[in-house]
Structure formats: C-alpha cells, structure tokens
C-alpha cells in the first residue's frame, strides 16, 4: 500500500526522503510527495516521520 501523506501535518523536514529505499519521495511546495511508480510499498517511511504525517492506508473493516 502506498503511504498517504497528510499535507497539513507534513513539515517538509526531509526525514522520509532520506529513509526511502528507492528514493521515491521528493519535496514539492515544501511537502513530501511520493511518486507512485517508484514507491515499493515497504512502509519504512511511516514510523520515521517525526510528526506522524505518514499513514499506511491499511483496510481495517472486514465484511
């Protein structure tokens, strides 16, 4: 699952950019942005975000 970035929370600090294995994250207008075609869906970025602005959109509700 490609992580989702909360742009309201993101401070553009660049921590996720440095951690992202395939280098799929860049800064655009001061906010982190994930390139879907490069993201390898590892999830490494989410726990590293100092302001918890990155979320894995895990499907919670079953049938």
């Amino acid at each position: 699952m490609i992580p989702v970035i909360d742009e309201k929370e993101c401070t553009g600090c660049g921590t996720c950019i440095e951690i992202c294995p395939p280098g799929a994250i860049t800064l655009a207008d001061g906010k982190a942005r994930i390139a879907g075609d490069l993201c390898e869906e590892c999830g490494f970025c989410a726990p590293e975000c100092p302001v918890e602005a990155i979320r894995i959109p895990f499907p919670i509700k079953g049938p």
Partner: protein
Amino acid sequence: MERYPHIFQPGTIGKLVTRNRIKYAATETNFPYGDGYVSDREVAYMEAQAKGGAGIVTTQGAYPDKKGEGKGFKGMMSINDDRFIPGLGRIADVIRANGALSSIQILHCGREGGIELDYCLMPSVVPQKLSYFKPPREITASEIKQAVKDHIDAARRAKQAGFDMIELSGIVGYLISTFISRYTNKRTDEYGGDLRARCRLMVEIIEGVKAEVGQMPVGIRLCGHELLNDRGGNSFEESVESFRIAQEAGADYLSVTIGWHESSQSVITRDVPMGHWLYIAEAVKKAVDVPVMMAFRQFLPHIPEKAIAGGQIDFVEMCRPMIADPEFPNKIRQGREKEIVPCIACNACFSRLYYHQPIMCSVRPNLGHEGEDGWGYYGFKPASKKKRIIIVGGGPAGLQCGEVAARKGHEVTLFEKNDRLGGNVLVASLVDPGAIELMRPIATLEELCRKAGVAIRLGVECDPAMVGREAPDALVVAVGPAMKGLGASTGVLTPQDVMVKDRKIGQRVAIIGGGGVGLGIAVYLLRHGEHEITIIDEAGKPGRDVNPFYFWQYMALMKKKKVNFMKRTRVTAIEDRLVKVLGPSGDIAVEADSIIMSVFYPEEEVWRRMASTAAKEVYFIGDAKKPRRIINAIHDGYRLGMVL
C-alpha cells in the same frame, strides 16, 4: 520415474494421510482486514497455495484472544469469536477443494503481540530492544488460565470451520515460547522453574485442545534451538526435550524451527548454507515418534529429498520458497524445476510485516494479486493488439518485462550487449558467498522468456539507430544505470572494475556512496583482503536500500574491520589519489590508493535523447529509469509487461 520419490510419497499425521511430504508452512501475510476478518485477497492467496500441490497447507496464525494481546500483525486474522468462522471456513474450503489437507494455526504472539495495545504479555518482564515490540507486562495466573481457554475455544471454531488439523505455535518469542525459554520465564509459581514447569502452559494448551477436538490431529511448532545463548536462553538439550514433552502431551506432529527474532545470529539469510539446520531436526526426530518437519533454507528439492530419505525429517515445510512460487511442488513433480520462481532470501516479505504492509516478493510481483486477472497469476489474456517490442538490456528488468509481454502474445526481441544475461546482478552476485543465489531468478527468467518465445540476442550492442531501423511498435530501455560527473573521472573505478575485472585495489580505499552498492563493494573487498576503507556518503545513514536482515550483518563486518563512514559528506573534487570532500567537519581531503564510485544515475544521455525517434512507444525501466535494487527492477519489468 519419480525424481523425488521420498518427497512424493504419502505421509501420515494422526489418522490422516497426505498426498506427499510437502507442507506449506504458516505465513503471516497482512492480507486480512485490520479487524481480523479474512479477506478475498487472503482466500485467493491460500487457494494458489492449495493448487500448488503441497500435501498440507497451513494457514497463517490466527490470534485467539479478545483483547488483541495475541495479535502481532496489523492484518493478522482472528479466531477469537464465532463470527470469524465463515471467513476461516472459506480457507478450509479452497484447501480441501484442491486436494490438500488443511492445518490452521492458532497463534498468541506473546512478546510480539499487543500490536494495537500499549503492552505485550509475557511470563516475566524481560525487556528487549526491537522497536516493534510493546513494553512487556507480566501475565497473571488468571490470565494464563484465560489464555489456555482461548486456545481451546479457538480450536473448537477451527473444527467448526472445517479444517483437518490444528497447529499451535511456540516459537521466536510468541507466548508459548516465552514460557518455555529460561531467558524470558523467571516465574516462581508452577509455570516457572525447571523445563517441565516452563512447558506447563504448552502442555495445558495441547491437552485442552486435544480434549476439545477429539480425533483431529494437533501439531505444534517449537524452537529446536533458540540461539539465545548470549542472554541465558534454553540449552539445545532443553529445546529438544521440549519436543518430547509436547509429544507426551499429545502432539501429533512437531515442527522444528530455529532462532528467535531477537537472536543475534543469521538463521534464514543467504550466508546460511542450504540445509544447514537439518541436524537440529534430526536431533528432535531421534527423541520422538510422531512426524517431524522443518522449513529453513531448503530451497532446492534435492535437500529435503535427501533429508526425508535419510530420516532427518518426515515432512519438509516451505514458507518463503512457496511465497515466491506456490507451484513449487507441482513444478518439481512435473520436471519443470527450471521454471521455479526462486526465493532469493531477501526477506522483503518478512520486513513488510513489521511495517504494517502486506507481504511482497522481489521475484514474484503478482504476490497478493492471485485473484486479480490483470496480474496474470493464472496466465494473461492475450493483448488486444499484438506489438513488435524491442527490449534493450538483459538484466532482471528487461527479462521480466519480456517474459510477461511475450506471454501476452507480443513479438519480443531482447538485446543484451554481454554474452551473458543478468546485467548488474552478475556483479551483485559476487558480493559474498551466498549472493550467487541472486542469479537463480535470472536463470528462471531466461527459461521463462525462451518458453514464451522471446528472441534473446546475446552479445549484440543495440543502439537507437539500430532500433530505428527495426521500427518496433514499442521500445523498452532496460540498459542499466549511467555514470556521470565525478564518477566518470579518470582513474575512478566502478563496481565492475573491482568485482568482475579484478582490477588491483590499493591498501587505502575510498568508496563514494554508502547505499547498497557501496556497502556491497566494501563487503567484497573485506572478504578478499585487508583494506582501510572510507565510505563517503551524502546521506546521514548508510544502506537505506539494504534489507535490515542483511544491513546488520554488513554493518557488523564494517565495524569489525574499522571502516570509516563519512556521513552527510559531499565529494567536491577527485584528484590523483585524493578525494576532496565537504562535510560536517568542513573541507577535507581523503587520501586513497583506489577510488570507487557506487553512485549511479538514470540513463539520460544516449537513450533519453534519441529514443523517441526510434519507436512510437518508449519506456524506461529498472536502473535506466532510476538506479535501485533487484526488487524494483523485477517489479518495473512486470508492471510494464502487464500494460504493454
């Protein structure tokens, strides 16, 4: 004649007879929903496993308790309530429909549980370092009784759901194992003390479950060797004895595992030779009478064949090899071994679990998409328009793309300038002794490409002009990365120079770039001689693209060999035996007899400029798109193939 007569003989578990001696082992997937319900995705995955030909197919562990103390993974399935029975029943049904026996695992994650709580339950409070784990809380006597009851209730639901057998799990730090281990069990009540007392929880659970389900076989996974000698874990003899106690309590089969997640020793990585751990299964087998099984680095079928023939194990369990290829059993039975999509022990699957992601596979991009037609697990629909496609580059990206495109009916020609396929995997496979396994998927892709009708032209350097003359409908540029800037300076060596061309490397070495390639070069050099290595990296942390399973090994070696890391440091100039850098301590010059560049760039010169004149559709994949790892190359190739 059967090539693997011992693997493909019937087996017996309790009163049940299996069609062969392969058991797909329990594997967490994170495919189920966060609330514990089985998803369509999980059912489709399990159906693929059942169709693959294994004799027994085990489900992932299901947590048995209401509070979620036993839940260790975000998408772990639950068996803590009757409302989950219909979903679990769907898994039992697809396994039965495909001729395998089903075993459902009941798993309380203990030390690794409480994933959505702020604590985990343990016999005693023994903290650990892994950040994924929750702070431990000591389980009370009444909570122990409840845990036993939870397992028994879960077993009843498993029977109602239609499973053939039940598996309990006491390994790696899960609840039962934390009681058995002297490392984590410091209790002074009847559940702590000598081994037999530490096994009491396990015994109560086995006996309770057996009494609940009657004739249904009940197996258990236990640790054959905890590899926790450095912190007071069980002795090997104690571990073997725990299997005997499980048998005495009524276990109908015993699965032998190795190591805890906290063990500071390699267990399942490529540096561990295949079949290495069988001696431990053999020790267990000598101590018990019920069937013994084991997984762990038995990726090539002759290894379990020999182990079963030699009486070391009765069944072989397969986890990662069947994540990579659920058809593994069918393929070895039908003499299609060359078509097996081989696990490379990269552990991408494993590491995904700890980051709340569904498991993923470097070599099988359609993992988790078995139920979606477009991903082609059961074959692709022919493309609506047949295209002539030229792929330039015979590394993992180009080969994977060609294989998928050809299976969809396209006419594919693949050019590789070298006389061997593999691209940069040829180099990566030399890093350390186990790395040669990275060539296995290349061999498979070559076989699958030929079978699908890809015309492979080795030793042909294809340039844009040549593509232009061929005028294909689509051009796929998979030529690998480019070197530019300082890396192209005179005297700067490439990974190929060092590892393939065997260029002489001096005493003092500067490696520019601390990613996976840079670390790989350092590992290679340190294996072959004594060097003083400095790794210059712009990032604050090296090896961001290296799987944690390998990263810690590499870093331990670097520390031992006193490799100097210059972090957040940029190279400003390269002169003769001198690398000028700018970093936290200002402008510095690093003296080096050999300077090696490990930082590469996307293909931007030749092909970017010219490609659009050569073909109508142009695509860049793998390192030509952006230098990354084998998982990215294979996934790029597969995903492009799907849409061509």
